[in-house]
C-alpha cells in the first residue's frame, strides 16, 4: 500500500520536472483513506500523515501574497482557528505549494519569519515547492482546506467558509465550514458538510 503511494509520488515529481501534462485526478476522495505523504517543514523536520494517526489533521494551502489568504490572516481569522483547534489536540499543517520563483514561494527562513509576523499558530508549515502534496490532494486554491479524521479518512475537502470574497467584513457573516467540521468531529459526530467549492487564488504550481 505504502509502496504504491511512494511510486505514485515519484511519478508525479518526475512528470512535474519534465513539464508533462499532469494527471489531475487527485487521490484525495471524501470518505476514503486520505493519501499519505511526507513533507519537510520550515524547520527541516519531516512530517508524514501516517505518523498522525489517532489525531485530527487539518491541511491548509497557503500563499501569504494571495488576497484571499490576506483576508483570513489580516483579520486573524486563520490564526484564531489554528490556536483554538491545536489547543484541542488537532494537528494543523499549513502547506506552501508555490514553485520557486512564483508568488507565495518561501525559503524555510522566509516561511518562519512570516509565521512570526502574522502570529500564525499551525503545528507546522510544510514546504512543497514541487507541488507534490498539492497535486496529490488536488489543492486548487489558497486557501483550500482538507480535514482528516482520527482514523485517517478524508472528511472535509473545500473552502474555509461559504462567502467567496476578499472582503474581511464578510468573515463575520460567513458560515465557517472548517470550524463546524472540527466541532462535529471533536464531539464525535459525522461531518455534515463534507465538500464545498474552494475559493481563492490558484495554487502557483
Amino acid at each position, binding site marked *: 500500500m505504502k509502496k504504491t503511494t511512494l511510486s505514485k509520488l515519484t511519478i508525479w515529481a518526475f512528470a512535474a520536472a519534465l513539464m508533462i501534462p*499532469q494527471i*489531475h485526478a*487527485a487521490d484525495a*476522495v*471524501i470518505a476514503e483513506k486520505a493519501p499519505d505523504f511526507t513533507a519537510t517543514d520550515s524547520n527541516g523536520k519531516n512530517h508524514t500523515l501516517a505518523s498522525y494517526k489517532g489525531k485530527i489533521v487539518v491541511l491548509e494551502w497557503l500563499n501569504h*501574497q*494571495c*488576497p484571499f489568504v490576506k483576508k483570513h490572516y489580516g483579520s486573524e481569522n486563520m490564526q484564531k482557528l489554528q490556536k483554538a483547534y491545536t489547543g484541542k489536540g488537532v494537528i494543523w499543517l499549513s502547506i506552501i505549494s508555490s514553485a520557486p520563483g*512564483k*508568488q507565495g514561494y518561501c525559503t524555510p527562513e522566509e516561511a518562519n519569519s512570516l509565521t512570526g509576523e502574522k502570529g500564525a499558530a499551525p503545528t507546522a508549515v510544510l514546504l512543497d515547492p514541487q507541488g507534490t502534496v498539492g*497535486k496529490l490532494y*488536488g489543492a*486548487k*486554491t489558497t486557501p483550500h482546506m482538507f480535514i482528516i479524521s482520527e482514523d485517517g479518512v478524508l472528511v472535509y*475537502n*473545500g473552502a474555509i467558509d461559504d462567502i*467567496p*470574497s*476578499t472582503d474581511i467584513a464578510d468573515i463575520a457573516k460567513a458560515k465557517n465550514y472548517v470550524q463546524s467540521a472540527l466541532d462535529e468531529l471533536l464531539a464525535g459526530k459525522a461531518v455534515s*458538510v*463534507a*465538500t*464545498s*467549492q*474552494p*475559493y*481563492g*487564488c*490558484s*495554487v*502557483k*504550481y
Partner: protein
Amino acid sequence: MKSPILALLFPLLAFPALQDQAQPVRTQLIPEVLSIQPGKPFCVAVRLQMEEGWHTYWKNPGDSGLATTIQWKLSPGFSAGEIQWPYPDAFRLGPEVNYGYDEEVWLLTEIRPPSTLKTGTSVSLDATVEWLACLEECLPGRADMLVKLPVEQEKPEADPLWDEQFKKTREKIPEPPTAWKVSASAEEDLIRLSLNPSAEVKIELKGVSFFPEQSELIDYVEPQVLKETDAGFVLELKKSKFFSKWPARIQGVLFSSEGWGEAHNKPAIRINVKFDRVNSKPKELKK
C-alpha cells in the same frame, strides 16, 4: 448638434474617478444613450480593459478567482437589473480552469428610471465596481464611477461613439434557445446535457463548451465530450469533486463555435433547465 453634448460627456468618461495607477485594469462607465426619458429603461456599460495577460472573472469564476460585482447608487425611484454577462473564455492555468475575460469586457446593466422623472433636470448614475484581476498572481481592484445624463422628453439617442461596441457586446450575451430542446440528467459521475434541435435547424455542432453558472456542479478541468444521438447531441460532463447535492435546475451557457443555427445566430445560448436526477438515459447505449 451632437458635438457639445459629446464634449461635455467625454471628459467624464475618459477620466473615471479613483483609478489606481498600479492596477492592471482600467474602467469606464458608459451609458448607451445621450439622455434619459422618464420611465424608459436604458443600458449602461461597465468597461473593463485588462493589461496583457491579465483576466477578470465571469459570474462563476471556475476553479479559482472571483466574479466582478457592480453596486449601483441611484436616485429614488430608479432600479438596476442584473449584469448581462457575455459568455466567458475558459483559461487553463496548470491543473485549473478559470472562466473570465482577457483584453476587454463590457458588462451591461439595464437601468429603469421612474416615469415621474422631471425633464430639464439631470441624473447621476453612480457605480462601484469590484473585481479580482489575475495574471498568475491576483490583485483585487475597485473603482467608483459616476456619469451624469440630462432628462429629456424625447426618445433618447444612442451615443454614436459607443453604438458599435454595444452591438458587439450584445452578440456575446447569450439568450435562451428557441430552436433547441435542452434537458439534463445524471448517472453516477456523469452529467448529460441533451441538445435536441427542432426540424428546421440544420447544423453540425462544433467546439461546444458548457459554462455552468453554479459552482459545485461540474469538474471544470475534465474534458466535455460531445456525442451525436438519434435526436441530436449529448454533452457529457464530469461531476465536481465538491459536489454536495443535486440542484433542482441547471443554469449555464452553452457555446458552439459554429453557432446554433438560431434566428439570432449568436455563438452562445443560455439554458435554465430542470435537472432530471433519475437516470433517463437508455442503458443499451452504454455497451
